[in-house]
């Protein structure tokens, strides 16, 4: 045993929280992006060397397809936005149901939450694709349900279940004294939730909620499996139309870089918010 940095006694080591309960210990960092960019550069170099004489260069080919890829990527983002919105709007009441005083409401909310939280996303996606009709009639007008919309709903189901858990966890994390003080001031339970508990929850929920959004965004390429023309599907289409095997690795890395550039700022903002809360 020794003091001053070199000690094997845990109590003497500086306190370092091991991955907060609200999120994964892994964080996107700038160096991950640099590694990705380096891998892309390397793969482009290797691919250029393999390019047959007379064929257009790899960089030129990638640039040629970039506008199409951007279109596909825009659909990924649109689906992530919509699925997050639907999932949040549906998940919030579900989470409140989980902390309800009514036993049956609590039980049903718990079951729905656990069911969708523990089902593989791809399974839910297939269910939505195959079980939902391709059009619905709302008040006499026929509304088409395109594949991207159905798969967005499919993605929103696990989001809903995760938001529900976030709400439940946040409500449970508020000290009991807050409930007691509100009760003693003659607030009703609804008032207590609305004015005392939930405002505090929203602050606590924001970082994990943003984290969930980043996870959802990188999950949107799953919809390529059910035939949605998003960036991943388009990458495959481009590869088959170009019919050049050396393009495969650079193009997928290129797409990966897009996702990184989109998710990295979100990860940074999440970290900044978490740090801010620790100071408070």
């Amino acid at each position, binding site marked *: 045993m020794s003091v001053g940095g070199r000690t094997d006694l845990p109590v003497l080591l500086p306190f370092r929280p091991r991955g907060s309960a609200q999120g994964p210990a892994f964080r996107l960092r700038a160096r991950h992006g640099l590694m990705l960019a380096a891998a892309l550069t390397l793969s482009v170099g290797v691919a250029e060397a393999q390019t047959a004489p007379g064929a257009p260069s790899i960089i030129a080919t990638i640039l040629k397809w970039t506008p199409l890829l951007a279109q596909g990527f825009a659909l990924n983002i649109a689906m992530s936005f919509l699925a997050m919105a639907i999932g949040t709007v549906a998940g919030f009441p579900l989470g409140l149901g989980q902390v309800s005083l009514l036993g049956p409401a609590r039980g049903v909310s718990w079951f729905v939450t656990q069911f969708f939280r523990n089902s593989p996303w791809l399974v839910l996606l297939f269910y939505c694709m195959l079980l939902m009709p391709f059009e619905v009639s709302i008040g006499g007008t026929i509304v088409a349900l395109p594949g991207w919309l159905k798969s967005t709903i499919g993605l929103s189901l696990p989001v809903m279940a995760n938001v529900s858990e976030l709400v439940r966890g946040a409500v449970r994390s508020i*000290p009991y*004294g*807050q409930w*007691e*003080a509100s*009760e*003693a*001031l*003659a*607030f*009703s339970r609804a*008032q207590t939730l609305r*004015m*005392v508990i939930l*405002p*505090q929850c929203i*602050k606590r929920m924001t970082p994990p909620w943003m984290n969930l959004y980043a996870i959802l965004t990188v999950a949107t390429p799953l919809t390529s499996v059910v035939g949605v023309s998003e960036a991943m599907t388009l990458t495959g289409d481009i590869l088959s139309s170009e019919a050049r095997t050396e393009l495969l690795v650079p193009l997928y890395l290129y797409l990966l870089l897009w996702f990184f550039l989109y998710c990295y700022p979100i990860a940074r903002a999440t970290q900044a918010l978490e740090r801010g809360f620790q100071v*408070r």
Partner: protein
Amino acid sequence: MPQWTPDQPLIRILDVHKAFGAITVLRGVSLDVMKGEVICVIGPSGSGKSTLLRCINALVTIERGSILVEGQEVNDPKLDKLKLRRKVGMVFQQYNLFPHRTALQNVMMAPIHVLKRDRREVEEQARKLIRKVRLEGKEESYPGELSGGQQQRIAIARSLAMNPDVMLFDEVTAALDPETVKEVLFTIRELAEEGMTCVIVTHEMGFAREVADQIYFTDGGVLVEHGPPKEFFANPRDPRTRQFLDQIL
């Protein structure tokens, strides 16, 4: 039910029993609090003091016995709890201020949303109360920016804003630094002198001796003995009281 009149006890506790699962906390407690009276409840940890307070405003339900607050039975499933709690203010050991609201908002919330009083009138009263607890200038501070003693005084102001008939204090100085204990006790003493009915659970013997009209000593879920402070501290009759006072004084 006969109408309650101010010459009857404001709080009448009769043979109250309470258990949490297998642990019996209160085994037949009875006491009366008259209007304007200041009661201090002392006793070792785990003797049921805090539970007794929580029974009075129905934060804890009792198994047997009766609690009348201004003639209204608290141990009644049909009890309008919100109505009861408007009459009974409570201050907690851990302050329990709402951390997302400023000091002023903490004081104003309940009168506005529960009593549905006019916002401007409530704000005027809230500022007055904050002055009264000597925290003028801290209206816009958040609880996290205040010291423990300051938070506790805001909590007292928050409770007073409901214009309660009786105030319950649950070991309100137990979590405070010694130097801030005094300021909180000062505020409570002022309230007591103004004629507020107070039930105070405390470990501050000097304070209890000074401020109380009656001291109650609890041990093992029963009220062992009670009396005016002078008598109580000078000649405790029960051996348990004597033992407790020997340890603490």
